[in-house]
Each structure stands twice: as structure tokens, then as C-alpha cells.
């Protein structure tokens, strides 16, 4: 083991998890600030377009104020919603998945495996929970390592060998060590808000397109240049409505997939045994039992997406997880 740390067989040179967590916190903060800024820009754009559309004079003079108000509103809303999600997130996730906390006596092997992985990562022992379903899955939640939970399904517990279970638990422990729960919750909220607002913008163009268009025709005689501004405003709304949610989701899913790869790699760094996780992923891939209790809201937390049937579609840009074949391939490269 000592020889392992001198020359990690995983090819991963970074073994100081606590330093990695600090680095991750910084990157998380940066991305969240960026997403908030995008949200503010989207809000300001919508506000400006509305200012143009409801403006009677046709000069677009008041539009700047509307842009300011809408942008400010988005900023405030982002902050409040993120705070609420972070505050309530844990309980919500555990409730949504039906995970029940267990004591050591209820599942000694699982408990031991979780404790082993907590020691390997140098993190405090998380809470251990079980979901009573035949489906094979697992997730981790908790904004801080001190208040984390690792949950696995009963089916997973029954189907996997000790080594495979260790690989899965290490993957979940990596999500905790990498601060992924905090990260994906905050990103999910900010992206959700952008999607919601741009959806509103898109719907309103239909409404404004008819009403505003009629209005424009009627008064086209007294307004010079106003018609052009209205067209631009509607175009801005359309662009925001169509592009920003797609772009935001693409970023979110790409980040989510990278986080899965990272958690797989970190898992091997903890166990120093890629075969365990590879075997587990194979079994998860072949499992047929459906996970009816899962909710779309928590799909990104699981080790494999509970809704997606993997295969040819799995490498799609909108997937929360990379395909299992791709994950196994990368794990092979580590071993």
C-alpha cells in the first residue's frame, strides 16, 4: 500500500483530496457566478424587449429601465431560489427517493464498506441509507462532507459482490469529496430558472406577436422606426427563448457527465481497484428492474441514470451520464 502512494497505479497523480475539494469549491463558485450573470443578461434582454413592445411612443426610451428591473429581479430570484434549494435540498432528495437511514446492525457489510471508503478519502463517516427496491442504483447527497448521506438500493446490495459494492460506494464518496451535490444543486437551480424565464419569453412572443403586430399596423402612420424596433424586440425574445435554455442545459449536462467521469476516476483512486467498479457497472447495465420511486429532479445524483436505457442514445448531448460502455472504457485505461 505504501508503494501505491509513491507511484499510484491509477496514473492519477493527485491524491490530496482535501486540496482537491478546496480547488473544486473555487471552480463551483465561478461557474455559479457565470450562470447567474447569464440569467441576469437573459432577464435584462427580456425586460428590454418588453419595454419596446409596450412602449406607445415608439422611441424605445423606457426600455432601459425595464431591462434594469428584469435583470435585478433575476439576480434576486436566483439568489433566493438557490439558497432555498441548498437549505432544503437534502431532506427533499431523501424524501423523493424513499431512502431510509440504517444502523450498522441492519447492514453490516454496507456499513463497513462505507466506513472503509470514508477512511480512504479522509472524510467523516456519512449517514448510510437503503432504498427498498429491486432496481440497481445508488446516490449520494449532502452539501458538506460532514452532513452527507450515501444511499443504495436493496437490489444493488443483493446483486453486487463486496468489491463491486466498494467500487460503487467509492464513486458516491467521490461525489461527496468532489462537492458535486452542492455543485449540481446550484447549477440545476440556475439553469432551471433560465429555462423557465426563457420559456415565458417564448410563449409571450406568440401573444405579443398578434396583439403588438396589430397595434403596430394600426399606428404605423405616426411611428417612424418604431416598427423596426418592435421587430428587433420580438427577434430578441425569440432568440432568448430558443437558444438560452438549450445552451444552459447543454452546459449543465456536459458538466454532469464530466463529474461522473471524475467520480469514476476518484473511485479508483480510493479503492485502487478498477475491476470492482467495472464489474458493478456491467451489472447495473444489465439490470432490468425499474426504479419507480426515482424523480426526474434527482436523476443526476444517481450512479446510473434511473430513466435512461443505455446504449446507442446514451452519448447524446443531453444525457446526465456518459454511456456505461464509455465509462468502462475509461476505467480500463486507468487500470
Amino acid at each position: 500500500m505504501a508503494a501505491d502512494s509513491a507511484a499510484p497505479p491509477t496514473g492519477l497523480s493527485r491524491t490530496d483530496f482535501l486540496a482537491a475539494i478546496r480547488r473544486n469549491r473555487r471552480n463551483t463558485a465561478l461557474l455559479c457566478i457565470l450562470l447567474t450573470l447569464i440569467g441576469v443578461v437573459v432577464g435584462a434582454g427580456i425586460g428590454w424587449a418588453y419595454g419596446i413592445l409596450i412602449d406607445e411612443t415608439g422611441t424605445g426610451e423606457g426600455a432601459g429601465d425595464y431591462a434594469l428591473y428584469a435583470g435585478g429581479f433575476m439576480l434576486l430570484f436566483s439568489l433566493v431560489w438557490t439558497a432555498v434549494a441548498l437549505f432544503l435540498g437534502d431532506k427533499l432528495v431523501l424524501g423523493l427517493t424513499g431512502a431510509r437511514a440504517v444502523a450498522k446492525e441492519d447492514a453490516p457489510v454496507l456499513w463497513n464498506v462505507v466506513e472503509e471508503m470514508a477512511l480512504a478519502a479522509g472524510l467523516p463517516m456519512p449517514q448510510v441509507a437503503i432504498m427498498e427496491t429491486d432496481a440497481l442504483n445508488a446516490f449520494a447527497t449532502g452539501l458538506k462532507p460532514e452532513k452527507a448521506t450515501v444511499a443504495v438500493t436493496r437490489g444493488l446490495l443483493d446483486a453486487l459482490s463486496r468489491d463491486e459494492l466498494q467500487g460503487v460506494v467509492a464513486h458516491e464518496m467521490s461525489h461527496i469529496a468532489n462537492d458535486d451535490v452542492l455543485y449540481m444543486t446550484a447549477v440545476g437551480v440556475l439553469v432551471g430558472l433560465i429555462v423557465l424565464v426563457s420559456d415565458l419569453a417564448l410563449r409571450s412572443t406568440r401573444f405579443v406577436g398578434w396583439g403588438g403586430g396589430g397595434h403596430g399596423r394600426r399606428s404605423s402612420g405616426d411611428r417612424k422606426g418604431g416598427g423596426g424596433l418592435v421587430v428587433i424586440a420580438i427577434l430578441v425574445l425569440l432568440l432568448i427563448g430558443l437558444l438560452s435554455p438549450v445552451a444552459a442545459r447543454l452546459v449543465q449536462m456536459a458538466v454532469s457527465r464530466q463529474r461522473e467521469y471524475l467520480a469514476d476516476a476518484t473511485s479508483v483512486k480510493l479503492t485502487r481497484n478498477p475491476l470492482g467498479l467495472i464489474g458493478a457497472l456491467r451489472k447495473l447495465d444489465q439490470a432490468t428492474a425499474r426504479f419507480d420511486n426515482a424523480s426526474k429532479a434527482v436523476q443526476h445524483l444517481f450512479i446510473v441514470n434511473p430513466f435512461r436505457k443505455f446504449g446507442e442514445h446514451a452519448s447524446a448531448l443531453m444525457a446526465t451520464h456518459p454511456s456505461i460502455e464509455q465509462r468502462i472504457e475509461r476505467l480500463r485505461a486507468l487500470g
Partner: protein
Amino acid sequence: MGTTGWIVIGVVVVLVLWGILLYNGLVAGRNQVEAAWRQIDVQLKRRRDLIPNLVETVKGYMGYEQETLQAVIKARNAAVAAEGGPREGQIQAEAALGATLGRLFALAESYPDLKANQNAMQLQEELTSTENKIAFSRQHYNDSVMAQNTRVESFPAVLVAGPLGFGKHPYFEAGDQDREVPQVKLR
């Protein structure tokens, strides 16, 4: 004169700030190493506590392996004696205990009766897990030691680390036999 004075003050402030950051980094690293060591300690103590129970349970089945059982008990007592002594001595005693336990587990494989004993199986899961926990906390300890030793030896920290009392920490090396501990199959 005024400009030179300000430059001197600026350099001194930067140097002091750099010194504070360096010192705090070294302290954080040393504390991480100490915390990691305490984690190993907890697991080693647990292993020492489990052993009398294990020996008691398997004695009836493994009557012909008196020599190995004696070796385990002897190694365990040596490890208990080394407790609280110098860290290098503890590491040696624990590595020796791990090696004799490995021999015992290997021999236990050829006693089918033992595998039918619920109590023995539970003890074996506990000991297997404790062995794993020792290995994993040792891994974390060694990772922390490597990070801290790199910090202490790097320039320019190497100039001040020694005088400030930050030394290199010893790695927890596994003994040769310990590395060949056969994995106990539970499923």
C-alpha cells in the same frame, strides 16, 4: 528617500504575508497528517481488540494450528506493548501482526467447519473490514505524508520549515509478508 522607504515597507509587508501563508499551510498539512495517523490508530486498536475473540472462536476448530495461534497472540501483545511508543516501533509491530493474521486467514480457508460457524463468519467480516480500514487509512495517511513532505522539502519552504519545527513524516510501509495477505472470500 521617501520612495525607497515605501518600497522597503512594501517588500516587508509582502514577505510577512507570504510567511504567514507558508506557515499556515505547513500547520494545516501537519494537522492533516496527525489526524490521518489517529484514524489508523483507531483501526489498529480495533484489530487488537478483535483478536482475542477471534482466537477464542477458532481455537476449537483449528487445534492443529497452535503454533500460528500462538504467533498471532504474541504479535498482538507486542503491538499492544508498542502502543504509545515511537511511531516507527508501532508501525513495525503492527506490520508483524498483520503478517501473522494473514497466515491465520490463509489456514482458515482449509477448515470448512469454520465457515459454517455464524459467529466466526461475522468475526471474519469484521476483521476483513478492519484490515481494509487499516489499509485505506494507511493509504490516506501516506497520501497526506507525501503532500506534507513535498511541502516541507520544496523551495523556498525548505529554508524555514526546519527552524520552525516542521520535519518530514515517516511513511507507513507495509511489511513484505503483509503485502501478500490473501483476500478472505466471503461470497
